[in-house]
């Protein structure tokens, strides 16, 4: 199987209520870039949760990195989760840890030596423009800074799959453009990226497949291109992003 993610007739129901996701079928190729859109309550976050293994579907088949997650023993999902990066809509930074420690988490949980952790985290925080805020705790950071910490945490372990839920929802256009530049750069290195967003300016004319969720059903539009047509200029930043 070449797909990095494959959904076959997946349905999701919470409790005994109606299905919030119905017959979802799609596949994502390695190194591809996708947008996931839909009105509020359409099920975007639920779909993302299934993809980053925080939720099991009620029915259907889900393959992540070629593994059928419905039959995969729980202990084996660990290695899959470590290959996935997630940028949460509400950041979900740990407020008692500094920006440095938040970003270092994905490396520390794998047992990497602290010297190496320090090196990689410092490099990345400089790259996202937070060199002077390494020891700051999230509550003291602005929304844009927190967003960059969250993104740095999601990408520090060089994930093969990156999910971002409304990554530009809390920031201005300039920061949003810079964030998209980060995702583009990551995608160029081979990471498959899925961005859930309401931002039509971002999805329109991006040249990427757009997965639209409505009423629990999924419709895919747009060409199935591997490379992303840069969306930075769509967000108002024509300059080469300097962060």
């Amino acid at each position: 199987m070449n797909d990095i993610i494959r959904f076959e007739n997946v349905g999701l129901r919470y409790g005994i209520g109606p299905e919030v996701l119905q017959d979802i079928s799609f596949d994502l190729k390695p190194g591809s870039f996708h947008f996931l859109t839909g009105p509020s309550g359409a099920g975007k976050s639920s779909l993302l949760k299934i993809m980053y293994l925080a939720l099991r579907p009620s029915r259907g088949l889900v393959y992540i990195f070629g593994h059928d997650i419905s039959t995969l023993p729980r202990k084996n999902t660990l290695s899959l989760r470590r290959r996935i990066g997630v940028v949460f809509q509400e950041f979900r930074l740990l407020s008692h840890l500094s920006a440095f420690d938040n970003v270092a988490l994905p490396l520390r949980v794998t047992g990497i030596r602290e010297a190496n952790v320090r090196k990689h985290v410092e490099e990345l925080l400089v790259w996202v423009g937070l060199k002077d805020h390494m020891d700051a705790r999230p509550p003291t950071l602005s929304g844009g800074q927190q967003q960059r910490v969250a993104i740095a945490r999601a990408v520090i372990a060089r994930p093969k799959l990156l999910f971002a839920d409304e990554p530009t929802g809390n920031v201005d256009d300039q920061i949003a453009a810079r964030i998209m530049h980060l995702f583009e750069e990551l995608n160029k290195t081979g990471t498959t990226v899925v961005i859930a967003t309401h931002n039509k300016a971002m999805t329109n004319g991006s040249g990427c497949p757009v997965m639209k969720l409505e009423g629990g059903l999924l419709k895919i539009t747009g060409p199935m291109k591997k490379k992303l047509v840069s969306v930075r200029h769509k967000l108002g930043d024509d300059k080469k992003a300097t962060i």
Partner: protein
Amino acid sequence: MLQRSDISFDTDDTGRFLPWLIAFMVFLAALSISGLFVLSDITRNLGSEFSNKITVQIPVSRSLKTDGLRKTETLRLLRALTGVKQADPLSTEGVQELLKPWLGDAATLEQLPIPSVINVEIDRTKNISVKTLRAVLLPKIPDILVDDHREWLNYLANTIRSIEIIAFSIVLLVTLTTVGTVIFTTRTSMGLQRETINVLHVIGAHDHYIANQFAIRAAWLGVKGGMLGIIVSVPLLFGFRFVIASLGTHLMPEISLHAAGWVSVVLIVPTIAIIAMLTVYTTVLKSLASLP
């Protein structure tokens, strides 16, 4: 002292409550274990001291001369018996000292009819018993009293055994209560740390990684609480010893905790820390198993 933790335990109130509870449990356990050791020593000491002893009492007769003759005759009969290792009369002053805890100064009154007491040491392997002595002495001195200490020793040993069971039950109850409380506080703590745990889980933390952090904290709380419990219990143990010693040794045997007892009391601290740590570890793992 603790390694870096990704989980914020500073805001967790269970960390304030648990050491006090553990301190109380350790305090009870320390008293119970000390009691077990002391009782065991008492049983052993009394057993070795009195198991081969018999007391012969010759009641006071109408005249001192008769008293003297009866005592001499009793000693002669006792010393002639095979199996009697020693038969020594207790002096009048010695008997008065024995009676002092009960009678006070009245024990020294000359008008007080104090019986003659003979301490007899026998060799039970020679097939001699209280019955043998009574069979020999009663025909000559019908009102003589022969007491085998073993009878009341057995009664005392049974009583001590019952107290030991109670003490052991207290230690067991303390352990179970500690385990139950730790399970409850761990679940509460996990509820408070739900967001952090979920984030760690999503980014790929192994269940053991998360459980280790809770377990290390539990061990530290166990040590803190245990030390507090020991610090309170040790002076109390010394105090008990002082009070009992000041009552005089006639009514109570000497009570002291030897090295093994003290070591056992001190070992309560690491034991309770390990129990807390293992309980928390398994509780956390079990809870995490419900995560996808």
